[in-house]
């Protein structure tokens, strides 16, 4: 699968003070691939995800997107981020703007589209995530699942090459998880490149091309989901899976 690498991490190290959160992490994500990152809390998986669009800086190693190194803070980084969409655990919808404005804001400000064009496209995207009728509400008036679907539409509005999901369902009530996962599955079927940090093993099994298992800041396993779930190689992964799959 990984013939055309879109994201490459080489020997990435990241510290929070003295805490070594990413240890020589290397990872390649091919165009059109869906990579699910799983692992216990504190294993560095969220940090890894956030490092790809430089919301977290790294101390050593290389990260390239589309063959180019991540730029320093500035215009070039802003341009790169338009290509790398991000969906957060806590949605982070702009609280002072309507759902439609949330989706249209970046296309208008960054892509310089006209308001009318951006709004038309935003309504299509909201329709795609099943929220066309909520366009004029404020984020606080929506359920968590709806907010997260708006956040996905907002990320899609920039036509990114890849979408990063940082535990997109971890802040949701159980009954809302599926509506978000369904949107993500559809994206995966449409060929979107995705890096998904999650605890949803069902999603990993059904939608991922590869599962990356992290523990203590290292990538321990990087394999096809079926292989990983049925016969994990490492003791650490066996231990992790036994804890989450048997409860």
């Amino acid at each position, binding site marked *: 699968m990984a013939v055309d690498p879109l994201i490459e991490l080489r020997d990435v190290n990241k510290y929070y003070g003295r805490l070594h959160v990413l240890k020589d992490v290397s990872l390649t994500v091919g165009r059109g691939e869906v990579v699910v990152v799983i692992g216990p809390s504190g294993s560095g998986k969220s940090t890894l995800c956030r490092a790809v*669009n430089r*919301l977290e800086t790294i101390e050593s190693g290389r990260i390239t997107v589309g063959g180019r190194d991540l730029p320093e*803070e500035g*215009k070039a980084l*802003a*341009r*790169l*981020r*338009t290509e*790398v*969409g*991000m969906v*957060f655990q*806590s949605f*982070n*919808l*702009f*609280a*002072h703007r309507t759902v439609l404005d949330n989706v249209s*804001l*970046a296309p208008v*400000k*960054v892509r310089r589209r006209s308001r009318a064009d951006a709004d038309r496209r935003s309504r299509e995207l909201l329709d795609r995530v099943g929220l066309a009728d909520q366009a004029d509400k*404020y984020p*606080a008036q929506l359920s968590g699942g709806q907010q997260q679907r708006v*956040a996905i539409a*907002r*990320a899609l509005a*920039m036509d990114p090459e890849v979408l990063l999901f940082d535990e997109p369902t971890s802040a949701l009530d159980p009954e809302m998880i599926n509506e978000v996962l369904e949107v993500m599955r559809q994206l995966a079927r449409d060929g979107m490149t995705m890096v998904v940090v999650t605890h949803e093993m069902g999603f990993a099994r059904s939608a991922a091309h590869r599962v990356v298992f992290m523990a203590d800041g290292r990538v321990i396993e990087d394999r096809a989901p079926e292989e990983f779930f049925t016969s994990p190689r490492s003791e650490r992964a066996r231990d992790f899976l036994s804890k989450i799959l048997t409860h």
Partner: protein
Amino acid sequence: MNVLTDNWSLYGRGFLGTVELTVYASLLALVLGFVMAAFRAAPVGSLRAFGTVWVTVLRNTPLTLLFFAVLLGLPRFGVVLPFTLFAVLALGCYTSAFVCEALRAGINTVPRGQGEAARSLGMSFTQTLGAVVLPQAFRSVIPPIGSTLIALAKNSAIAGAFSVTELLGTYKTLNELGYGIIWTFVWIALGYLIITLTISAVFTVLEKRWGVAR
């Protein structure tokens, strides 16, 4: 009691002087305070340092000393301006430090994720601040900025000591004319109340107006 009616034009000029100082210095303070707050939140180290020094120096210097520095110091470097303009500069710069800190407190009330979401959509620092962070910070900074501008109105009295026409300074003339000190000051105090209560009212309206924005 008739000190006001007898000296209507003297009071009037003093009152307008204070209004003028307050309005211009407020505008300067708001603009400078805004710029300094942006500096202090910027991802560029030198800008942050500049903002910090600005606030530290101006906030921790007595305003009278600042007046001396501006009115007596600047002419030594060849900067000669009308005294009123000097006073506006001193008042505006001094107050900008407080406006900056009020704005910064407001920025800190906006969850970090809001800025992260904006940046991850490719928005620049200025766009993130202008379209996402400040509009949300605005609501919570209205009351403290109101207080700061009221303080500015009252601080403008110091300008009177540097021969700028303003409200408090009128007492000297009135005193020389032999009017009783009590009524002189009652009318002066009333003048200040008109200005400060107007500022309060404006900010109450702003707070109501923007309080329903979400």
